């Protein structure tokens, strides 16, 4: 495969992924057709951009402060002769609030129906990362957790049992240190597996200890299943309806919930005129 972003490729320091040089080809920005769409989600400042760069060969701004992805949100790569389109979602702490970023991220995962959603977690701040992971798992079970910053965790005296996490979450968990390109090949393998439905996904179903909440959600979820047929994330939709989320309410009303959007891309973000 030719690399359109050939001149942008820098193998400086990507020791382990260069072993897979024959398998991984970075395609930069433009890709006409692809086999699988991958969404990249995560809290801000978790090394999401580093991973994006590593996979696509693009250079987004990477800095050690919770910032914004500055350049293109989409890229592509080729792995094992399959083309993957990678969509970098805005960094968010949660998918439940009403900020623009969160809506964009959430809408893409829900309506864009990516084949795999990779959630980048910060090994040094696992609790907070899990908050987002659990929410994503409510929406889709086709997920991979990239447990990044493992080198930092080590430096801070933390040991993380990735297998325990796989047991708890029911999806692949890949320990990584993206800065050093550690774990990239394992991540690619996991993404491929999930894309091809080769991983037995048993994504964790959150059971809320809050009884009243749990009952309400259960009731609505059942009714949704009855009406819409097999909806894998009925519980999540139920939760959104319960919260009064306008866009989800409309989707239920219009029955667009079950449809597949063919255009897996993000809306462009233009700065709106201040009043």
């Amino acid at each position, binding site marked *: 495969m030719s690399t359109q972003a050939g001149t942008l490729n820098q193998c400086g320091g990507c020791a382990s992924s260069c072993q897979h040089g024959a398998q991984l080809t970075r395609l930069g920005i433009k890709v006409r057709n692809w086999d699988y769409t991958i969404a990249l989600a995560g809290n801000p400042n978790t090394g999401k951009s580093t991973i994006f760069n590593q996979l696509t060969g693009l250079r987004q701004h990477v800095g050690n402060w919770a910032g914004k992805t500055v350049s293109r949100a989409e890229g592509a790569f080729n792995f094992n002769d399959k083309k993957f389109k990678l969509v970098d979602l805005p960094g968010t702490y*949660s998918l439940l*609030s*009403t900020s623009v970023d969160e809506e964009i991220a959430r809408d893409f995962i829900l309506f864009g129906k990516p084949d795999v959603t990779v959630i980048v977690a910060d090994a040094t*701040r696992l*609790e*907070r990362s899990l908050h987002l992971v659990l929410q994503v798992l409510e929406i889709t079970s086709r997920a991979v957790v990239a447990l990044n910053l493992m080198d930092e965790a080590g430096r801070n005296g933390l040991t993380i049992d990735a297998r325990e996490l796989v047991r708890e979450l029911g999806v692949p968990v890949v320990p990584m240190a993206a800065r050093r390109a550690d774990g990239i090949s394992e991540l690619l393998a996991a993404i491929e597996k999930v894309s091809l439905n080769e991983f037995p996904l048993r994504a964790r179903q959150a059971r809320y200890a809050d009884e009243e909440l749990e009952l309400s959600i259960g009731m609505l979820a059942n009714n949704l299943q009855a009406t819409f047929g097999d909806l894998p994330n009925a519980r999540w939709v139920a939760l959104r309806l319960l919260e009064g989320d306008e866009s989800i309410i409309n989707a239920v009303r219009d029955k667009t919930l079950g449809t597949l959007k063919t255009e897996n891309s993000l809306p462009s973000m233009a700065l709106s005129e201040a009043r």
Partner: protein
Amino acid sequence: MTLDMLETGCTATVKSINNQSTERRRLFDLGILPGTKIENVMPSPLGDPIAYRVRSSVVALRREQARLIEIEK
């Protein structure tokens, strides 16, 4: 007692967050909710904002935000 009254170096537990504020969701997103442990790490040289450790990360909050958080030591 509200968070802005917590001395440097001390830890407390969040009791509640002012219901009327729009900040509430934001604070929740950062992991600051009832039951969370929070520690005053250090103030900025000009006194505001103050850095707090919550759930293994350090976030800076302005005094007016800290004032919305009820704590108990």
